[in-house]
């Protein structure tokens, strides 16, 4: 300090009035290092101190801290700019995947590809129950199976609709349609679990009360040919026909056709309302997927679709709205497409696309966990359970000898998967887990 004072006083003889201040200024300018510091609050230049503690330090570190990120940014920018004047091309035909070439035991030893170890619950690999379903029509475009909220499965075999009560295993015949009107091309339970809609080959739709076992009414005059898909939205029954038309029928009123959606050129084979009842997804044999908004629908004119999604390259039958994310829709393509695609239905953006390797017949979200089940046709006729959103396979269930066309899930915290065979047709059921409602006991079959 002494030495410093001496130095400073000798240096600053021309401004002797504020010696302490001068000393600080002096220090700022010279790189002088005093060996001792005796604090004097009144004399401290707080602004300067603060500057030395903060900005000064930052300045010194700035080049080192900023340069990697700045460089990365520049690189990214260059990449982006470059992309704008570049076209990125890839072969349509991908090189063959190496899996066949690697011995099977090689894969399983150090490749945890089917990550079964991560699933927390036991997933049985065999079916708990198998039901015979003779004469079930093996037609990709029909929807012949539906599980109602009253735990009754409706299944159409030829011209007859059977009800199988899952709580006691009893089977009853609901109706047999006359041959000239049949066969039945779709069945769909109303949300009350009591009323059921039956779509027919002759373009009519019958409404039945399953408890009283009687027909309530017939809806006709809408479609010109078979009704292969149906979906309920409260009192609205939406029907999709071979003629590509989608009709909203208000089942309470006499002139039941309240809206018509025209957008498909070919048979409508997938139809699902979102949980909110605001959006309808429809898939057709023309490879198109449409999203329709209920609020813009009107009876006067055919309604414009909200989104027309043409990314699938084959018929779109499998549709499933995500139960935990209202605007997320999963859709599956047919034999020529084989992908499951995920959509944000507000924006129409395709979020993900996964090649499953085989025809996607049906999709079902797990109501309790973030999982999606898909059922497939050629070549493996398997059921695949996917984790969402990673789309890692959690399980793959094989054992069906023909394609798995339909799936249904019950409301009692059980997953039930139904499989239908070609000739000795069989449906498979999941074990019930109704007594353990909060455990991880969902079982799949």
């Amino acid at each position, binding site marked *: 300090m002494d030495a410093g004072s001496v130095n400073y006083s000798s240096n600053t003889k021309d401004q002797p009035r504020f010696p302490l201040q001068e000393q600080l200024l002096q220090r700022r300018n010279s790189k002088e290092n005093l060996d001792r510091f005796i604090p004097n609050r009144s004399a401290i230049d707080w602004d300067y101190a603060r500057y030395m503690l903060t900005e000064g330090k930052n300045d010194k570190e700035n080049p080192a801290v900023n340069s990697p990120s700045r460089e990365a940014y520049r690189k990214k920018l260059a990449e982006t700019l470059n992309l704008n004047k570049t076209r990125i091309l890839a072969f349509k035909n991908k*090189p063959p995947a190496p899996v066949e070439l690697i011995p099977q035991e090689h894969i399983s030893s150090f490749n945890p590809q089917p990550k079964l170890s991560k699933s927390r619950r036991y997933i049985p690999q065999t079916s708990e129950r198998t039901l015979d379903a003779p004469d079930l029509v093996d037609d990709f475009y029909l929807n012949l199976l539906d599980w109602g909220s009253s735990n009754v499965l409706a299944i159409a075999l030829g011209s007859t609709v059977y009800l199988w009560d899952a709580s006691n295993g009893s089977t009853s015949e609901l109706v047999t349609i006359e041959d000239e009107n049949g066969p039945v091309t779709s069945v769909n339970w109303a949300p009350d679990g009591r009323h059921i809609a039956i779509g027919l080959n002759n373009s009519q739709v019958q409404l039945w009360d399953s408890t009283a076992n009687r027909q309530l009414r017939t809806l006709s005059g809408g479609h010109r040919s078979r009704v292969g898909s149906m979906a309920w939205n409260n009192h609205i029954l939406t029907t999709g026909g071979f003629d590509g038309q989608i009709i909203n029928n208000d089942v309470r009123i006499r002139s039941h056709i309240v809206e018509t959606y025209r957008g498909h050129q070919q048979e409508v084979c997938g139809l699902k309302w979102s949980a909110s009842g605001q959006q309808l997804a429809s898939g057709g044999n023309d490879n198109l997927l449409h999203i329709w908004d209920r609020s813009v629908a009107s009876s006067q004119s055919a309604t414009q679709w909200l989104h027309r999604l043409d990314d699938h390259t084959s018929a779109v039958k499998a549709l499933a709205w995500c139960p935990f994310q209202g605007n997320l829709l999963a859709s599956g393509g047919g034999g020529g497409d084989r992908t499951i695609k995920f959509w944000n239905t507000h924006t129409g953006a395709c979020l993900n696309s996964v090649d499953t390797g085989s025809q996607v017949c049906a999709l079902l979200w797990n109501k309790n966990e973030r999982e999606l089940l898909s059922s497939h046709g050629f070549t493996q006729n398997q059921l695949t359970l996917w984790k969402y959103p990673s789309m890692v396979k959690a399980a793959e269930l094989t054992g069906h000898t023909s394609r798995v066309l339909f799936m249904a899930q019950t409301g009692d915290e059980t997953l039930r998967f139904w499989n239908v065979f070609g000739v000795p047709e069989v449906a498979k059921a999941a074990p019930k887990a109704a007594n353990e409602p909060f455990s991880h006991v969902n079982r799949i079959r």
Partner: protein
Amino acid sequence: MASKTVAKDIITLRGSAAIVSEFFGYAANSILYNRGVYPEENFVKVKKYGLPMLLTQDEGVKSFIANLTAQLSEWLEAGKLQRIVLVIMSKTTNEVLERWNFSIETDTEVVEKGVSREKSDKEIMREIQAIMRQIASSITYLPCLDESCVFDVLAYTDKDVAVPFTWIESDPKLIANPQMVKLHSFDTKIHKVDTLVSYKNDEWDEP
């Protein structure tokens, strides 16, 4: 190379395109072998660039690479090819694990005026050999690919290129925050090829 005259080490656009596309064919084979994308028993040894090189015997892969190099030489001769990227992805998740990036700078004067350049075959081969050696040694620092992988090839072309019937437009399949290693370059005096491999950060190595 075929159209080069031995006497004066003249290199034409066509010859240069042939060298570069052939180089890419061998490089792709070498990457697929060294990175274990296909099992090693699928490959046979040949002598090339003064090195033992491995070529796949799998018919599907072979024809994929043959079709690819044929198309690449067409674009190279037109000076329309900016970059070729060989992408290695996880088979299960499709996550991009490695990108082998071959950037190409074309001498526009040669393409426009049809002049030729001078560079000896030997010298070019020596440069390519250095890259091939680096590819083979890359397994020492690249992260282990311990799952089954698939590959794809992206071609970055000029905007005005008509998309051939068998090709589609693709996304760049970038890796977020990759590690990058620059390898050697080679230059035919018409096409300059820079090689760079980027790969996914191995998070286990981070403290």
